[in-house]
């Protein structure tokens, strides 16, 4: 592999994903609106929101510490780094050896810690409430996420996402029952981590139920825009990890310019399908009480564990 073309692929992937992340969110919201018989705001709405927010004047609380100001940038940076590591378009990118799946989960955890700290920084009760709820969901979702990753790692004998994709996507087609379990667990974790409907409602500002929104209530203008952008990046990163693990076809190798159009086409199809699927899941399920969330995530964890057990029984 040529060094320069590897870097070109890395830049291409990172920039492309950052640019299309709001579009993914817009597509999910549009699908949800269609499923609810509404006309919907259009798929470009997140860009309009970001544009509006970037042109506003930022208002900060008097007692805001530097941590509060720095958090949006740290959050955005973490998510951007994550989408650079995940093989969205190509495997064996220059960034890929920087982090395996465990470090990737750690990266998400780092972002979460900063958001939670910033939420408590101002000292409003809503921020603290949101931070506590977010940490509860986070500490239950992370083990489930790791177990899902381990099931895939056991099959490909590596914790590096690029190697997993290469093993799963470029060999002959084999059905892994363990991956079916891992996929269900991963979808549950995705819903919980991205503040989607069974756990949190991304479009509500009702005090009693909000989790993620409660933490970012104090942010405005460019800070809020960065946080919103980072959330859509996080959703895209999770969808990308999910499709890397469970639909690993069509991803090119870095430096392979011939495979690039196929990889782009596959990416568009995967994002369209998973976005529509996500909207469907959100439409058919109702938001559950916060005290049901541990049960939901314990189920995800146990499904991932079952996947590992099944791997040892059937595929070992």
């Amino acid at each position, binding site marked *: 592999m040529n060094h320069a073309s590897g870097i070109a692929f890395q830049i291409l992937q990172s920039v492309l994903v950052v640019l299309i992340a709001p579009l993914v969110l817009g597509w999910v919201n549009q699908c949800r609106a269609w499923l609810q018989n509404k006309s919907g705001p259009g798929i470009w709405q997140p860009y309009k929101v970001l544009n509006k927010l970037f042109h506003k004047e930022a208002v900060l609380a008097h007692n805001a510490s530097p941590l509060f100001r720095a958090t949006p940038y740290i959050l955005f940076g973490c998510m951007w780094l994550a989408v650079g590591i995940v093989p969205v378009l190509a495997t064996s990118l220059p960034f890929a050896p920087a982090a395996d799946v465990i470090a990737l989960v750690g990266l998400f955890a780092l972002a979460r810690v900063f958001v939670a700290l910033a939420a408590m920084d101002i000292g409003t009760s809503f921020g603290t409430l949101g931070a506590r709820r977010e940490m509860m969901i986070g500490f239950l979702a992370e083990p489930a996420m790791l177990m899902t990753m381990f099931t895939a790692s056991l099959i490909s004998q590596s914790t590096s996402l690029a190697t997993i994709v290469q093993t799963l996507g470029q060999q002959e087609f*084999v*059905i892994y029952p363990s991956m*079916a379990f891992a996929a269900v667990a991963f979808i549950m974790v995705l819903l919980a981590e991205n503040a989607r409907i069974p756990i949190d409602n991304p479009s509500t500002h009702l005090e009693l139920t909000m989790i993620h929104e409660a933490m970012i209530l104090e942010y405005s203008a460019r800070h809020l825009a960065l946080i919103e952008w980072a959330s859509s990046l996080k959703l895209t990163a999770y969808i990308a990890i999910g499709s890397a693990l469970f639909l690993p076809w069509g991803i090119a190798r870095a430096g392979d310019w011939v495979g690039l159009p196929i990889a782009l086409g596959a990416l568009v199809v995967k994002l369209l399908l998973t976005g529509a699927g996500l909207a469907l899941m959100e439409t058919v399920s109702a938001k559950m009480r916060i005290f049901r969330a541990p049960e939901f995530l314990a*189920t995800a964890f146990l*499904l991932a564990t079952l996947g590992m057990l099944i791997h040892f029984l*059937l595929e070992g």
Partner: protein
Amino acid sequence: MVSLPFSTQLINLFAGLLLLLSFAMLTQRRVLSLINLFAVQGFVLALSTSIVAWSTSQGHLYYSALLTLALKVVLLPWILHRLIRKLSVKWDVETLINIPATMLIGIALVIFAFNLAAPITLIGGTITRSTLGIATASVLLSFLMMITRRKAVSQVIGFLAMENGLFFAATSATYGMPMVVELGIALDVLVGTLIFGVFFFHIRETFESLDIHHLEKLKEH
């Protein structure tokens, strides 16, 4: 890793689905969804049986797949649907105690079953031998479901799901039981469900509830 034939991969996938459905039934609160899950489990069982029949060219397994389809996907769920409508418990929500703990016990049972089946798997000669552990686990999980439930209807569904697991175990260990035995069991299950249906009405008439804890007392206070 040795690549398995495609039919075996499919059977393994269906075995995994059966285990998933067993867990779903273990934690399902609604009686109506429980019956639907039972029907889906029967459907997966029929599919996997017909794939075993196709890949081993065992003609009699087609009949048992058909029997499963007719009995466990159509007839029994229909009887149960009728029952819960007549008992007017269609929208009943059962209060289950501590689902995470139940699931942990379930995981322990699965590990136990897998260990139990491992030596048998090693000496087995069928293409489906590795699914024996899953079949044993499904039987144990259904058993656990019968223990944790308080309502009579869900206990009967647990009993029927246990029969599903046993059927799957027979298919995976020895390519199914002789036809006479299978027909006998099918008839037993059918008659059993009908008799249970009559019992439900008696239980409710006597105690005005389907909670079987009332049956533990010997005397009326």
